[in-house]
């Protein structure tokens, strides 16, 4: 655009292709590893081309999980746990945040700012800085090894509340006025006007929060002690153990591929909402 760069036109392509290669390389090796037998990998003679055991390895990982040296629940079970966790966390965060933002923006009531700040301050209290006491609360409530314990404590969301609050404040007073004149009460207005207007924001936030829920680590590690409650991200690191050479790497790699697939698919397929959600939720 600025100067003719026939001389350097290849440079961006080279750099970007190199970047893509660095991103793809470990994934490629995982795919290759998931198509060979554990022996070849353990001897350190894994080739750069796919082997013929893809079906067997994925079938075994999917329905049994465990191999000769690795003990794990079936991948189908762990994927289900992750899916339940990610969906409940994402939907839960959206629901509680949309409701709180609605209350804070469209009503005047004593304590409005107090509650707003109370939600806002949770930004500064990530799980990591209150590990043991939070664990104690969850265990006192009898929620260890339950989906409730996995998800409910993560459901509050300052970021989502802020995002909806910002969006709600751009809704013109005229619209609210018109709805009131037409006889719409607060719940009617919320359901028939506000939610449909928020559709893109809801989709964008869902993508971000789904990935957030899917990729949780420390929390499920603490809350689940029974292997059948393992999420796939936790399950896979338990499979690795101490990282010995002689283990069922073929199954571990098949599990790794299956663990990445859902969140990566969500990002790629919902790209437009993903970028919007990412850039806006961090503002």
């Amino acid at each position: 655009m600025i100067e003719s760069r026939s001389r350097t036109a290849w440079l961006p392509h080279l750099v970007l292709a190199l970047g893509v290669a660095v991103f793809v390389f470990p994934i490629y090796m995982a795919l290759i590893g998931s198509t060979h037998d554990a022996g070849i990998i353990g001897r350190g003679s894994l080739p750069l081309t796919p082997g013929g055991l893809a079906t067997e390895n994925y079938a075994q990982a999917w329905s049994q999980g465990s191999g000769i040296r690795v003990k794990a629940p079936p991948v189908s079970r762990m994927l289900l746990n992750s899916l339940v966790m990610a969906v409940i966390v994402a939907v839960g965060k959206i629901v509680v945040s949309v409701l709180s933002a609605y209350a804070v923006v469209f009503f005047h009531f004593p304590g409005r700012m107090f509650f707003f700040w109370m939600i806002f301050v949770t930004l500064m209290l990530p799980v990591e800085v209150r590990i043991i006491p939070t664990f104690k609360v969850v265990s006192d409530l009898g929620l260890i090894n339950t989906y409730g314990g996995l998800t409910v404590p993560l459901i509050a969301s300052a970021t989502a509340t802020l995002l909806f609050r910002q969006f709600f404040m751009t809704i013109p007073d005229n619209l609210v006025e018109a709805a009131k004149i037409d006889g719409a009460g607060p719940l009617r207005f919320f359901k028939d006007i506000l939610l449909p207007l928020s559709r893109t924001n809801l989709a964008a936030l869902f993508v971000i929060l789904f990935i957030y829920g899917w990729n949780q680590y420390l929390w499920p590690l603490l809350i689940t002690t029974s292997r059948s409650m393992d999420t796939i991200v936790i399950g896979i690191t338990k499979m690795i153990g101490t990282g010995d050479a002689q283990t069922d790497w073929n199954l571990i790699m098949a599990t790794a591929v299956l663990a990445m697939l859902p969140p990566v698919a969500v990002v790629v397929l919902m790209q437009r909402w993903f970028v919007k959600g990412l850039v806006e939720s961090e503002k």
Partner: protein
Amino acid sequence: MPRRVIFDGKLLPYLLLAPQVAITLVFFFWPAGQAVYYSFFLQDAFGLRQTFVWFENYKIVLTDPLYLASAWRTVIFSTAVTGLSMASALLLAVMADRQIRGAAVYKTLLMWPYAVAPAVAAVLWLFVLHPTIGILGRSLRDLGFAWDYKLNGAQAMSLVIVAASWKQVSYNFLFFLAGLQAIQKPVIEAAAIDGAGPMRRFWSIIFPLLSPTTFFLLVVNLVYAFFDTFGTIHALTAGGPGKSTETLIYKVYVDGVVNLDLGGSSAQSVILLVVVMTLTAVQFRYIERRVHYG
């Protein structure tokens, strides 16, 4: 900021707020309060009795050479991860911002690692860099380099840095690209007409205009390196060999969950809390500034 037109309702707004407020009270404020409370007590070995000791736990933690070593390690780790992932992301974003064929395809191909969990990224790199089975790990040894991250602390640290940065580049890339695309092209064209070459244009115009994005990413990346890399470390090295990859957040986990030192771990939590508060405050000062100056 308050709206002119609002709804009436005495009870309704409280009902709307109730779910979120209940969760924050039970799972955020109460436990955080407990952490502060426990940080002032010393437990006996069986957890039966506790003595109020004022700031003794903090004194113990902050004068513990192991804690200070871990703090220093965290500084090195966070700086490396932030620097590496931001520099490579900026380079990729500048290249993707040029008007080249297939820019949209590159963007798609560069954004997806964001979706990979830190622990899964760790597993992928472990498979590649494992000293006996990893394809790169073996190559390093074949070249005569004594690569074994299970024995060598510095190598373990570099492995954790690579796995943690790899995953974070996409995020930074998307923000840098958005920042670059928001820069008015005529400004850059004017500089080109005045005879500034590509490097000069980048350092004197583009980079300064990008500084709000850079600053924002700096804070976000530090928070990521501090907290979200727990999974990376847990999956790759579990803090070892020795304590060579034990960052502050990993130490809180080890002392609290594994060694069951309630007082010491709580004091460490409170110290981390102060770090988060500082970072969040810095971030919000910046947002305020951006609101004022566009």
